[in-house]
């Protein structure tokens, strides 16, 4: 465990020493941002809209006390979405989609000697292959989380009003009640931390793949599993530290 951690730290250090030219890094980061961010918009939108909708309907189902105002549903949807569901569920979804893609891509490059080809050319392969992926993830995860927050709240609104469990006025009133701007900042901090964990762990797993196609599959699976565990541990740690 400690040896792996030490190797991971050395891996990250190798990535930032002797980096490639800024223009190369910029182009690579934009390419990766499209793969990590833009290509994930659909799945993040679908998941977050439905999570918001289901949250709203289930809270309404459990909130039977007539003394509790209906606007509480909107309030609870907002709090749950911003504090937990949007950053954590989005990151877990991205761990599956982006994490496996990073690990599989790098693993394949490793076993087909493409990484060696870069090294022989005198190119720092970690800087060229891994750094842009991590930077792109650090930028795109918070954006996707903001999208997820918005669509979850919209999903809750649509589910609440279309099923008739509450009025639009009650939902909007709940959404605006006791709003704490810091919660948004907290969610974005979580998104950045999760982005680093997913991209870093997945890149580490993929980059250090040895063997053949079977090992690439194992690296992808390991990347997703480890990323999700890391997200959950970090989620708890950040909640304990920052709230």
């Amino acid at each position, binding site marked *: 465990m400690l040896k792996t951690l030490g190797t991971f730290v050395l891996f990250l250090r190798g990535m930032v020493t002797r980096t490639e*030219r800024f223009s190369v890094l910029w182009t690579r980061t934009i390419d990766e941002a499209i793969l990590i961010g833009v290509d994930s918009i659909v799945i993040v939108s679908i998941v977050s809209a439905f999570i918001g909708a289901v949250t709203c309907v289930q809270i309404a189902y459990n909130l039977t006390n007539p003394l509790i105002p209906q606007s509480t549903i909107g309030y609870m949807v907002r709090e749950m979405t911003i504090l937990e569901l949007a950053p954590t569920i989005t990151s877990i979804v991205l761990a599956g989609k982006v994490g496996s893609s990073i690990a599989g891509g790098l693993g394949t490059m490793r076993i087909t000697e*493409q990484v060696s*080809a870069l090294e*022989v*050319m*005198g190119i720092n392969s970690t800087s060229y292959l891994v750094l842009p992926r991590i930077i792109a993830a650090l930028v795109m995860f918070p954006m996707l989380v903001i999208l997820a927050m918005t669509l979850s709240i919209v999903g809750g609104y649509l589910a609440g009003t279309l099923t008739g469990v509450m009025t639009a006025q009650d939902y909007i009133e709940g959404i605006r009640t006791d709003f704490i701007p810091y919660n948004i900042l907290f969610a974005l901090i979580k998104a950045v931390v999760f982005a680093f964990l997913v991209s870093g762990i997945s890149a580490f797993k993929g980059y250090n793949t040895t063997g053949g196609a079977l090992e690439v599959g194992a690296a992808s699976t390991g990347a997703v599993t480890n990323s999700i565990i890391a997200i959950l541990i970090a989620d708890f740690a950040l909640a304990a530290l920052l709230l």
Partner: protein
Amino acid sequence: MIEVSNIEKSFDGTPVLKGISCVFETGKCNLLLGGSGTGKSVLLQCIVGLMKPDIGSITFDGTVYTNSKVDIRQEIRRKIGMLFQGSALFDSMTVAQNVEFPLQMLTPEMTPAERRERVEFCLKRVGLENAGDKMPAEISGGMKKRVGIARAIAPHCTYLFCDEPNSGLDPATSIKIDELIREITHEYGITTVIVTHDMNSVVEIGEHIIFLHKGHKLWDGTKEEILNAEVPELKEFIFSSSLVRAAKKVDDESEGGLAAITEGATNGGGI
């Protein structure tokens, strides 16, 4: 010229290279010959810097490569071109982009027009002038090797390393690849090191051959000398190759099979 001095390398206590010293001459096709598991590829990886030897030194034209500063290592690496066993083309790029890639990375002073011109020249040189827009997945194994060679020579490499360039190719394509490597070596006066266990390559392009066996260098010489070498392991290796066995069979049945190889080797030509 590349000088290898007393290289040793072990994996988990198992020695793979045991004090290998040799010289790879400039302007020649230097072959690292040997059976599977004899340490050829490990030696090649030590030379190009993908692995660090436990002991010993490697010198490129008088500049010590092993344990030197990063800048010096980088400078030498930029003079190295390598053809990998599986070609190692970047599968997200077209053939032309693969060839252009080292130019983009290593020679930022080149304009896009100059780079395109160089890519066209290199692709034409390897006979693939019409394949620039194809993806690596769309071309054959032999074409991939050619693209690998074009990519290696694009940045005007001084040293060309080829790891089993004939693996997975049919005999006719193998000969074409061998010829291409020989032509490029002579045309540009580069130092070429080829890892192989293919006797066809020995006969075709073996200007300087180094025979490895169980991590030791047992013999070195030219293709003209190899059939007369008095090293039992080398003899066993040569006479177990399908090429020589086939020739011997013809020799037994009629006359001239093995003699043809010997003659071909002596005259410097192929069979």
